[in-house]
């Protein structure tokens, strides 16, 4: 696992030193993170890297994972979709399931800490422990809750409003709340297996193992098999583009342990591909980081055709590899991509098809998009910036709420 100094060649000595200075101000503070899955999905990835680094600068950070039945995770998936706007009703039985799971986790998890950092709606109910623990509580919302289906926000609002601080990835995702709202964009780790530099031969070996040929340009979408990522729309766009430019398509993804709908979407994707030898559907395990890295690096164009997004970190992953990205202008994607400057923002399947053709044909323009994108990610979406924001959230809770805080 990398240590903080390993990031200095990428982000600069001064930035690393600042993180250590902030850590000095928080030395010994106990922070417990709680989410709902150890592997798969952006939250688990970020915590895997961030928790050790926080400890390195002196914060006593831990990570607890709540447990729940299949029934609970089906409910929270439904809640997740409803918070994104899909209509749903929540029965008394489901509410009871949520409450029962929360109570069981309150007994099972060690929440003894100075700061409890709770991620997403699944463990939001743990705030009930606040009555008995003398600590500060942060609710970190990784999804877009700006336009929820009726009843969805009301499900979690009574819990969220009891926190000391909420954290959203972008202003567009947030809601009016009676508690302070911090904005913290997520990040990628440039030293992780998913993002570290790979040699050409390493890439080739991995692609050969996956059965991908290098005789045609590769267009890729890396995403969970999830309807909001519109994998069927990607196939449709690629088919339109292929009428003009010969290329192959990789749809690489997997399903996190809290996503029971993934298998169904994967089945539909396979059906849509209809055995086309130029479409590679890769159902990868959550540990396939090197494979994803190699696929992104081997791609000529990377797509993220999301219809709804939390943040869409795969965009930053591709940009960090200096790849031209075509992405849906939803959620946090416009924060990562400035249209025609650091990537392409689209709204339609036809638009994606058009830009696949353009970028495969205009390689100089595509290269410039990728280079600008990489610098934008370096400045805004790397793990060190994320770590700094977490440290600042902790300091805000402990030393705020002034606008200028001298440490």
């Amino acid at each position, binding site marked *: 696992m990398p240590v903080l100094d390993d990031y200095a060649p990428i982000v600069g000595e001064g930035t690393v030193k600042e993180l250590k200075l902030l850590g000095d101000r928080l030395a010994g503070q106990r922070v417990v993170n709680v989410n709902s899955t150890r592997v798969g999905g952006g939250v688990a990835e970020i915590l895997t890297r961030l928790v050790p680094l926080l400890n390195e600068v002196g914060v006593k950070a831990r990570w607890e994972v709540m447990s729940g039945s299949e029934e609970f995770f089906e409910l929270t998936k439904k809640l997740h979709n409803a918070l994104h706007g899909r209509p749903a009703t929540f029965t008394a039985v489901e509410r009871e399931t949520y409450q029962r799971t929360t109570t069981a986790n309150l007994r099972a998890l060690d929440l003894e800490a100075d700061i409890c950092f709770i991620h997403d709606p699944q463990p939001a109910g743990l705030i009930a422990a606040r009555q008995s623990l003398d600590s500060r509580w942060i609710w970190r919302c990784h999804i877009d809750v700006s336009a929820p289906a009726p009843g969805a926000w009301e499900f979690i609002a009574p819990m969220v409003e009891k926190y000391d601080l909420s954290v959203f990835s972008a202003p567009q995702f947030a809601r009016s709340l009676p508690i302070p709202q911090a904005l913290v964009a997520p990040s990628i780790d440039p030293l992780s297996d998913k993002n570290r530099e790979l040699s050409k031969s390493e890439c080739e070996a991995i692609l050969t193992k996956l059965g991908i040929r290098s005789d045609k340009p590769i267009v890729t979408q890396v995403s969970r098999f999830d309807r909001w990522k519109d994998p069927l729309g990607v196939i449709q766009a690629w088919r339109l583009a292929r009428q003009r430019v010969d290329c192959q398509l990789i749809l690489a993804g997997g399903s996190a342990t809290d996503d029971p709908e993934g298998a169904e979407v994967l089945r539909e994707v396979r059906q849509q591909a209809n055995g086309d030898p130029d479409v590679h559907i890769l159902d990868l395990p959550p540990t396939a980081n090197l494979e994803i890295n190699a696929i992104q690096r081997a791609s000529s164009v990377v797509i993220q055709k999301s219809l709804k997004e939390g943040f869409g970190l795969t965009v930053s992953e591709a940009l960090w590899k200096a790849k031209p990205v075509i992405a849906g202008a939803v959620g946090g994607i416009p924060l990562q991509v400035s249209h025609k400057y650091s990537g392409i923002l689209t709204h339609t399947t036809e638009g994606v098809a058009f830009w696949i053709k353009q970028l495969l044909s205009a390689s100089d323009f595509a290269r410039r998009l990728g280079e600008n994108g990489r610098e934008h990610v370096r400045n805004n979406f790397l793990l060190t910036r994320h770590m700094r924001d977490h440290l600042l959230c902790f300091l805000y809770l402990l030393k705020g709420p002034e*606008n200028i805080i001298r440490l």
Partner: protein
Amino acid sequence: MAQLADTERPFEFMSRLNLTLLTDLRARDAAELLEHLRVVPGAVIYHHTHHFLVQHQYLSPEPPNDFAFWVSNMLLEERLGEELAAVDVLRFATIHELREALVHVIENFLEGCTNLRVAPPGEEFYFEQSVSFVLPTGIVARNLSQFRDGLAQVSLNSISYHMFDARLRLEQGGDNDFSKWLEAALDEREVAAAMRRLDPYTHTEEGLRRQMIALIDARLHRESERARSG
């Protein structure tokens, strides 16, 4: 390079790290932008006129300010956007004065405006504010040579703090920290004046660092030459 005299009033490089907080205010058109701009805390004005400098380091010249960007790109009011972008932040010694200037530009626009354009849903202007954490970097300079080395080492946040915050947000008479110290503690009036003349809003911060170091290197070089010939 020459080693100039030490001062008993060393310069302590500070750094400033910002946490962004969302306010509950948002604007759909220029009239709402104006309404909120009049009353938001200074930390909101500071945020929207300065965070671009940090987030878009690779752009030069940098995008001007969030108000101008939003008006141009979301309301498609290019004339107003241009006028807001042209508000010269360096002219103002306080956030209050900067706010007044921005308000004045929008008021003038609204006087002649008969049909207000509205931002598409989801593209409203979200008012945010910076909470700034100021801390010493541990790097201290007692002479010009040490100051130059410190400048080369510190993060861009530190440069930003001494050049932008000290001048405008902390309302220290409209001067940047570097020029003030160079003049008061080292009597380096020429370098101080040259730094004061730099427009930090038209450079990337890395570019600004390079320019300031070049000014000091030139001064140290002249001192070396003088010592050698003398």
